[in-house]
């Protein structure tokens, strides 16, 4: 952890993001699609470029200088991740392709070993498809049941009910649609009283708030680099040592073995047991640079700034006639999903885009949640620390134009 964070000045910070300084259809870009993926600071882009320009080689095998440098950078990034989420050990950090692969890894290894016919897996009604479908597939294969914890009208999960057959709880930390922050610590405590492990999908949490997996107590925690201002194609699975050790490997191949004969293969120790094949080395290096960057800005500064921006945007959007915000949880991250009159979100999105404003429209990979709220789709503005109040004002003006077109 860096102790001396930079003074938080959004104008200065925006200078770190080259992509933000352009016009779209003649208007300054307003990027409000951060929950889908966030933009990359120069520090990350440069780190990847520098790595390929001067340090790149394959890792863990070579005795030569470049391989040693690459291996060091790769393993240094693992320690950066460990510190970011306060894992007890670096070997509890497994690099994956992203959140989705992290969840699939647990479903296919831990899940296949521990879930049987008649067992139950508990998820919530606000999950992203990536925290629904892998469990559905597993349940189908094993004859198990997927049970859904409902959300209330504010988009909150107030409590969960466990049964004697519940074998796993898999929940989002923060909803990608509603922004709801779930009471993960309480849910984990409740599940652990019955010795039920908990997987947390942290894709929408890690970029916006301090995450401490030991404090949360969860057994698995997954997230993606690309939402954390890092490159695409890389993600993290955190798992507790004893669970990871007891799990069968995920994929077979190079790097995940200790010795191979045609009769028998002995698997490598953690974390390599789960990292078969040459990984996305540059992606990991880029993620390391992104973590350095976030530490430099300070996650606490980010959280404070985004909370203020959310309050400002919520207030401003509530004043737009005919606009209804979905998800009004007391504890909420900087995501606003809304519907506007009877205007379809795709029309809203197209008209905003022509004014340089990038929002997400559709079901946000959460179709069951859309059904819960009785809408086919929403428009979603999701914020990052580089967004400003002026940009929120531009969104409000953009929505006035949308209403004008449909007047």
């Amino acid at each position, binding site marked *: 952890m860096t102790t001396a964070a930079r003074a938080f000045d959004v104008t200065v910070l925006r200078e770190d993001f080259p992509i933000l300084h352009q016009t779209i259809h003649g208007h300054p870009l307003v990027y409000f699609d951060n929950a889908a993926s966030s933009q990359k600071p120069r520090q990350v882009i440069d780190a990847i470029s520098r790595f390929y320009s001067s340090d790149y080689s394959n890792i863990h095998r070579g005795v030569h200088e470049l391989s040693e440098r690459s291996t060091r950078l790769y393993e240094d990034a693992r320690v950066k991740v460990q510190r970011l989420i306060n894992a007890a050990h670096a070997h509890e950090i497994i690099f994956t392709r992203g959140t989705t692969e992290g969840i699939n890894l647990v479903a296919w290894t831990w899940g296949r070993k521990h879930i049987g016919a008649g067992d139950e897996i508990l998820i919530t009604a606000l999950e992203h498809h990536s925290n629904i479908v892998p469990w559905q597939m597993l349940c189908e294969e094993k004859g198990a049941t997927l049970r859904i914890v409902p959300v209330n009208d504010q988009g909150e999960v107030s409590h969960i009910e466990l049964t004697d057959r519940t074998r796993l709880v898999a929940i989002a930390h923060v909803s990608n649609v509603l922004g709801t922050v779930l009471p993960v610590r309480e849910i984990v405590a409740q599940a652990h009283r019955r010795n039920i492990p908990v997987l947390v999908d942290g894709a929408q949490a890690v970029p916006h708030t301090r995450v401490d997996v030991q404090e949360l107590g969860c057994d698995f925690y997954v997230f993606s680099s690309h939402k954390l201002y890092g490159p695409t194609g890389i993600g993290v699975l955190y798992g507790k040592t004893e669970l990871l050790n007891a799990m069968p490997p995920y994929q077979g191949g190079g790097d995940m073995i200790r010795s191979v004969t045609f009769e028998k293969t002995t698997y490598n120790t953690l974390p390599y047991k789960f990292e078969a094949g040459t990984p996305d080395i540059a992606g990991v290096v880029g993620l390391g640079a992104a973590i350095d960057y976030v530490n430099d800005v300070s996650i606490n500064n980010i959280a404070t700034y985004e909370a203020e921006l959310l309050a400002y945007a919520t207030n401003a959007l509530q004043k737009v006639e005919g606009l209804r915000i979905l998800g009004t949880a007391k504890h909420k991250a900087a995501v606003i999903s809304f519907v506007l009159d009877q205007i*379809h979100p*795709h*029309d809203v999105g197209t*008209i905003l885009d022509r004014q340089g404003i990038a929002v997400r429209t*559709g*079901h946000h990979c959460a179709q069951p949640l859309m059904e819960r709220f009785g809408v086919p789709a929403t428009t979603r503005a999701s914020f990052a620390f580089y967004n400003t109040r002026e940009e929120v004002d531009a969104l409000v003006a953009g929505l006035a134009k949308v209403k004008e077109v449909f007047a």
Partner: protein
Amino acid sequence: MIDDLYQEVIIDHSKKPRNFGKMEHCSAKAEGFNPLCGDRLTLQLNLENDIVQDVRFVGNGCAISMASASLMTEVLKGKTRQEAEALFQKFHLLLTTDSGKPEDLGKLAVFSGVREYPARVKCATLAWHTLHAALENSAEKVSTE
């Protein structure tokens, strides 16, 4: 300009879709679904001697897809199966290439602005793809009878 896409006729048809509703009996039917955006519609046709006598639809979606379905139902009545398919081809050309001829498309020409919005072509063509499926289904039925 955004108004080239959202022309008055399109806004009008999206708000008050024509031929919206279900038919008791029909000779051809298909469901169209756009999994990317969740738009869905059900199209029903009555064909007599291969001529569209009546056509209706129900569904929900964005202004472009609803208006496209509405205008399509208006122009289809009285067309033969071949004429309907030919119209789809022309409509598709108009939306995806520079070689489309708006003058051949009558009131459907209001959709020529969609060409500038590649992400929205699928919205404008959903009803037509559904029509194509309905006609194919009915053709199959005919051939097996």
